[in-house]
């Protein structure tokens, strides 16, 4: 160690032994059961995701991990999730982990209304899946943009409006819905059953292979118990920040895969009698990909540590989302360019990684939004 650093307490950016064990067991399971062909077969099947994989995530403790022990969870940290989520990106997992557990589940867990807490047990065991009905279509970058309205009615509320890109929305047992109390009131969170009257669900598959739905709420009536939080803006920001970090870990996993696959291709694909990676234009592109990946990995690791320490700010999240979104797209576009025509085929995994990175960038404010927000101060 350099003399300058002697006697200083160093920051710890390494995973704990337990985190490494969790990471390795998830990686082993996915390496064995979730190769690209199996993933593509799953995406083109009628199933929205694999029930078997979801059960295995429950077995591995992933579904219970982020919930507190007194709510029946394992009390895991954001660092624990980051440890294994990179494997999700490497394998382009389509199961609704972040939406059901990190977003909808975390919102139920944050509720000051104990009437709904039994859902946590069902989510954590894999028995039920929840959808997070938040996005309203124009890139709902912060809760202040929510337009959907909840009006008091009798003992309960009536929800009206439209949600888009509700992951697992057509198959979820329950929906967590963000809506504004009256036209100018605070944003509240509600729990709505999948069979509620007035739900109009349009299901589809996303470009990155996930099951999703646009859901119109035509005067959907819910009881008073359905309210999770009356003023949820702050809780939502915290919940979404954590979800962004875990999705960012997935994105870094995808970037890692793109980098190694592309470097390997450039060193084996020959044109003009030599591997294309020996041409300066390709070599420099590869170098830029590596630089971008290394910055993304550093920002992921540092930001996860900040979140673990409870010291994270909105500005840190904007740095994270802006940088990872931008660098992911740059890496994906370079990977396609270097693969040539092959990179544009549905058959090869390269373009599918890029689609996952496109989806990561578009959700919760794209890189342009977050970078401008940083500039505003």
């Amino acid at each position: 160690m350099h003399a300058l650093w002697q006697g200083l307490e160093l920051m710890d950016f390494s995973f704990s032994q337990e985190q490494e064990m969790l990471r390795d067991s998830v990686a082993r399971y996915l390496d064995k059961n979730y190769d690209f062909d199996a993933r593509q077969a799953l995406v083109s099947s009628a199933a929205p995701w694999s029930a078997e994989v979801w059960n295995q995530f429950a077995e591995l403790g992933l579904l219970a991990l982020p919930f507190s022990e007194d709510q029946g969870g394992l009390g895991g940290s954001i660092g624990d999730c980051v440890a294994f989520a990179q494997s999700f990106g490497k394998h382009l997992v389509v199961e609704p982990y972040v939406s059901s557990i990190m977003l909808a589940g975390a919102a139920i867990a944050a509720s000051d209304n104990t009437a709904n807490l039994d859902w946590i047990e069902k989510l954590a065991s894999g028995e039920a899946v929840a959808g997070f009905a938040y996005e309203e279509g124009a890139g709902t970058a912060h809760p202040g943009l929510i337009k959907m309205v909840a009006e008091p009615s009798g003992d309960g509320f009536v929800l009206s409006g439209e949600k888009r890109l509700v992951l697992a929305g057509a198959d979820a047992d329950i929906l967590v819905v963000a809506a504004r109390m009256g036209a100018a009131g605070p944003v509240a969170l509600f729990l709505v059953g999948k069979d509620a009257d007035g739900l109009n669900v349009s299901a589809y598959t996303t470009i990155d292979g996930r099951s999703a739905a646009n859901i119109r709420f035509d005067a959907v009536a819910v009881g008073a118990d359905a309210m999770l939080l009356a003023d949820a803006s702050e809780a939502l920001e915290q919940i979404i920040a954590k979800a962004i970090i875990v999705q960012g870990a997935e994105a870094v996993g995808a970037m890692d895969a793109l980098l190694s696959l592309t470097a390997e291709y450039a060193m084996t694909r020959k044109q003009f009698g030599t591997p294309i990676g020996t041409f300066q234009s390709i070599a420099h592109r590869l170098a830029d990909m590596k630089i971008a990946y290394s910055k993304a990995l550093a920002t992921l690791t540092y930001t996860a540590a900040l979140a673990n320490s409870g010291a994270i700010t909105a500005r840190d999240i904007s740095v994270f989302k802006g940088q990872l979104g931008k660098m992911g797209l740059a890496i994906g576009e370079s990977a396609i360019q270097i693969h040539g025509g092959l990179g544009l085929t549905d058959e090869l995994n390269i373009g599918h990684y890029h689609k996952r990175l496109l989806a990561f960038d578009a959700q919760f404010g794209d890189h342009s939004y977050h970078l401008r927000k940083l500039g505003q101060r």
Partner: protein
Amino acid sequence: MNIDFSPELEAFRAEVATFFATAPTPAIREAGRKTTSVFAPFQECMEWHKTLFEKGWAAPHWPKEYGGTGWSVEQRFIFAEEYRKADLPPLLPQSLGMVGPLLIDLGTEEQKQRYLPTILNGDDFWAQGYSEPGSGSDLASLSCRAEPDGDDYIINGSKIWTTYAHHANRMFMLVRTSTEGKKQQGITFLLLDRVDYPGMEIRPIVGLDGFPEQCEVFFDNVRVPQSGRVGEENDGWSVAKHLLKHERGGGSAASPTLVRYLERAREAAAIIASPFGGVLADDPVFQRDIGELEADVASLAHFEKLAISGHSIARDPSFPSMNKTINSELVQRASVIMNQVSGVGGLARQLEALRVGSNVEPLGSEFDLISMPLYLNSRATTIYAGSNEVQRDLIARTMAGA
């Protein structure tokens, strides 16, 4: 130096606009709006080709004696501008833009008489068989073999990235007829008068946008007549180089398409909410980004107008490479901003809604429907027709005093 702004031109513009407002069928219009690639939906595109042929407007860039329009540069640009404004499907480039002009320049009289009329009227569609699995940027290394046998060649090998081969009834291709000397010297340019020869197999490749636009073509002892050869045996590379000038630009203008893309982005941004309040079109970052793109597109339009007018800029040996590089990178940048405008609206995979005649309503706007497939498809522009890395090498080489 003079630019024609005469009233006659405005009358011409009105004539073109009226035709575009009345002639296309609803299916042709739908195909135009749902075009997310250089290559428009095939069936409607060819139907529109025939309509334009009947009007005498299928090939404005061809010499008049072969069926061109004899228009001035201004008229050709006005035609292209009105074409894009009306969101009509662009005609496919392989026949009218590549093999047609090539035959006019280098074909035998017999080849011209046999092939040009049905290229012009839209009865035929030609696929371009160039790239091979092992020969992309290094096209001259191609190995698909043609052995002379009597009056025929016997072809063995395969081609890849053969756009719309599954729709084609004819094909032009490069084959290896000799392995002696430099790799460029043993190549021959062949016209195949059909694509259903015994031993030929065409397999579509599904792209990232979900559509089978590209194909692989396999040749297993395929016997074709030698009369389809353009130029001399083993001199196909110079024929191909001649054709590349047409493929990489010079024939028709790309800037009106880009202008229209940016207009569509503006139209969508005028409705979509900005996270900073108001609509996206009011966002200064969006304004700056689209302003920069519009300026770059304007420069391309200037470049194209000079080139079509025969300015010396177009006689620069690196002109085709510069034109291809500028154009392809602008298409990508325009598609990026379109996709940014759509944001999460572009994340739904909507293949059925994109299919012409499906009558499936898109989940969001028609703009959101096309922006992502257009973005994904346009990743190809810096790869096909010679990757931009190769184009930059070619440009640099012309500067080295070669």
